[in-house]
């Protein structure tokens, strides 16, 4: 049997299905109710026991740096001892029900109240309340569960954070969810812990029975309960390859990218979510050079509110552990449509309402995001990065919005970071050519070489037929980068490069010679870029650049570099 859902946390796992609750759900036939006053006493004891257990689990998680999980567990501890929940359960007991039935009814009543609200965030808390009810019943009935053997694939329509938190370390191999999306707590926590997860399996999930073995793929979003030997071998190969890659990462993690004659280029990481930030720090990143905020906005019907954005950015900033984090404002347009933000269809989306243009046209949307970023800045060093700028007017307008947000936050008494550095993504030829004047209005440049290449070479990067044309090693792109570095130098601001070029070992010597001070790339590419930098000297790099700049085509540059820099 093969099931298909959505991959929400990457990785492959092979293990046994574990359906929590199924072996530990209330067993009325084994529960012997006492008198109403005994039931009251059992309920109070269970509530105190569960709250204490959740607080203890929260402490453990907090010590291990899993702030997000700890916060959720703490709120659940408050809920387990909540007076309204307990009073409502007490009324049920007084009406003649036993404690497990009373607590389930009380939780259902509270959950229904939350579900009746307009607010999406509060509606989602209804699932938390039902979890608490079930946990209380398990505590009452002493439902000690027997776990299947070996690695476990925890499976359920919903999985509560405390269940994930309570499973013995090392046993949890994967998470399979019937409901939900990448934003449900269990998916976020799985991702944060590097455990593969598949969500959205729907009713088909019920075919997965306790104890079955299954192979899950968190990248493809699939579950296979009858994997062939070849499937398992392929999965094991993938797991081993991932482990080798991780080892290589660790070997290089402590190495800096320094040329043989002692010039250092700093390596930052590109990331989207806190779990990636944490992984990047483990790989030795100096910070996050590009935190893409779009992931929060994709695949949903409503826009994330300030609180949700704030929590996500703060989690990323905390995961960076004091290292700087450049958060890029919403970078969407006709080419990356959002369900929650319908944009008009355009003939030429790459030349239309995109990125900063979308933000400036919708001040409410923009300020919500800016406020969330500024607030996250109170948790650690952040900067704001504006995508697709073409001239200084956009930077000036953005600064005015930022100043207004600071003013509002100050008045509301909400803590936030003042003087957050403002950076410009140089990804239009206009910005590159105007770099010296643009640099007076911002605090740093970040070269987005993917877009810069497609705009400079008039080659749509989403059109496969143009793939051969969009090479960032094109001498025209190199010259635009040169203009940008020169302009940044005149304005006295640093210039970094993000985009695929930053991850290409062939490009590294050219970027060094151009005077780029920082690169931001996927941490997986750290080892190869470090190796490329560590084996060259600045005079060698400058000689390569001079030749490359004067070549006629990208192909000529690429051939030349490949001959000079063999693997």
């Amino acid at each position: 049997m093969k099931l298909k859902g959505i991959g929400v946390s990457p990785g492959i796992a092979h293990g046994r299905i574990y359906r929590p609750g199924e072996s530990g759900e209330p067993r009325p036939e084994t529960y012997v109710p006492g008198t109403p006053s005994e039931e009251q006493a059992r309920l109070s004891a269970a509530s105190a026991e569960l709250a204490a257990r959740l607080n203890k689990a929260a402490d453990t998680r907090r010590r291990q740096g899993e702030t997000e999980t700890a916060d959720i567990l703490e709120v659940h501890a408050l809920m387990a001892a909540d007076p309204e929940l307990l009073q409502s359960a007490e009324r049920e007991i007084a009406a003649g029900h036993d404690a497990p039935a009373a607590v389930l009814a009380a939780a259902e009543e509270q959950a229904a109240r939350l579900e009746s609200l307009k607010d999406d965030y509060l509606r989602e808390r209804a699932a938390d309340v039902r979890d608490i009810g079930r946990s209380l019943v398990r505590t009452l009935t002493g439902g000690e569960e027997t776990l299947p053997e070996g690695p476990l694939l925890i499976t359920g329509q919903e999985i509560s954070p405390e269940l994930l938190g309570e499973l013995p370390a090392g046993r949890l191999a994967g998470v399979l969810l019937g409901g939900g999306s990448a934003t449900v707590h269990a998916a976020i926590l799985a991702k944060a812990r590097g455990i593969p997860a598949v969500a959205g399996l729907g009713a088909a999930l019920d075919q997965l029975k306790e104890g079955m073995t299954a192979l899950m793929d968190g990248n493809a979003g699939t579950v296979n309960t009858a994997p062939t030997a070849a499937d398992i071998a392929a999965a094991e190969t993938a797991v081993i390859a991932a482990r080798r890659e991780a080892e290589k990462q660790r070997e290089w993690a402590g190495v800096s990218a320094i040329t043989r004659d002692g010039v250092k280029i700093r390596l930052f990481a590109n990331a989207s979510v806190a779990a990636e930030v944490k992984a990047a720090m483990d790989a030795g990143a100096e910070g996050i050079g590009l935190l893409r905020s779009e992931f929060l906005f994709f695949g949903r019907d409503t826009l994330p509110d300030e609180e949700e954005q704030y929590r996500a950015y703060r989690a990323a900033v905390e995961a960076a552990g004091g290292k700087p984090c450049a958060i890029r404002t919403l970078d969407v347009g006709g080419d990356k449509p959002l369900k929650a933000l319908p944009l008009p269809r355009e003939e030429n989306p790459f030349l239309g309402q995109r990125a900063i243009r979308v933000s400036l046209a919708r001040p409410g949307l923009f300020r919500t995001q800016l406020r969330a970023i500024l607030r996250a800045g109170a948790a650690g060093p952040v900067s704001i990065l504006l995508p697709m700028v073409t001239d200084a007017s956009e930077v000036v307008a953005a600064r005015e919005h930022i100043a207004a947000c600071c003013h509002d936050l100050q008045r509301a008494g909400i803590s936030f970071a003042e003087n957050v550095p403002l950076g410009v993504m140089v990804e239009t030829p206009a910005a590159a050519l105007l770099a010296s004047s643009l640099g007076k209005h911002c605090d740093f440049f970040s070269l987005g070489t993917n877009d810069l290449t497609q705009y400079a070479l008039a080659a749509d990067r989403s059109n496969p037929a143009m793939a051969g044309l969009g090479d960032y090693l094109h001498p025209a792109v190199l010259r635009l980068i040169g203009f940008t570095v020169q302009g940044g130098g005149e304005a006295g601001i640093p210039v970094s490069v993000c985009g695929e070029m930053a991850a290409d070992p062939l490009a590294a010597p050219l970027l060094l010679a151009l005077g780029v001070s920082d690169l931001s790339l996927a941490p997986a590419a750290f080892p190869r870029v470090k190796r490329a930098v560590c084996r060259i000297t600045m005079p060698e790099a400058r000689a390569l650049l001079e030749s490359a700049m004067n070549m006629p085509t990208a192909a000529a540059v690429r051939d030349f570099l490949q001959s000079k820099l063999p693997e």
Partner: protein
Amino acid sequence: MIEAIFPAPGPTGLHARTAGLLMKAASAFKARIDVSANGRTADAKSVMGLLALGAEAGTPLTIRADGPEAEQAVKAIGAFLTGKPIK
């Protein structure tokens, strides 16, 4: 009984964190404290009750306290809701 009205704080009203902080502020007092908004009333010492008020930023919250230290309780909650920075 002491009664006072304050707006629910921004930016998101009584969400998990704010509700938790309000609940902790209320729990420091022995008085019975109720919060009413949107036609519903909750025990200020109950996170679940506070969440279920569904109070967005700016919604008037009526605080009623009865019993020992009722006045101090309302003052402390008022300070939390209006002036004090939300850490």
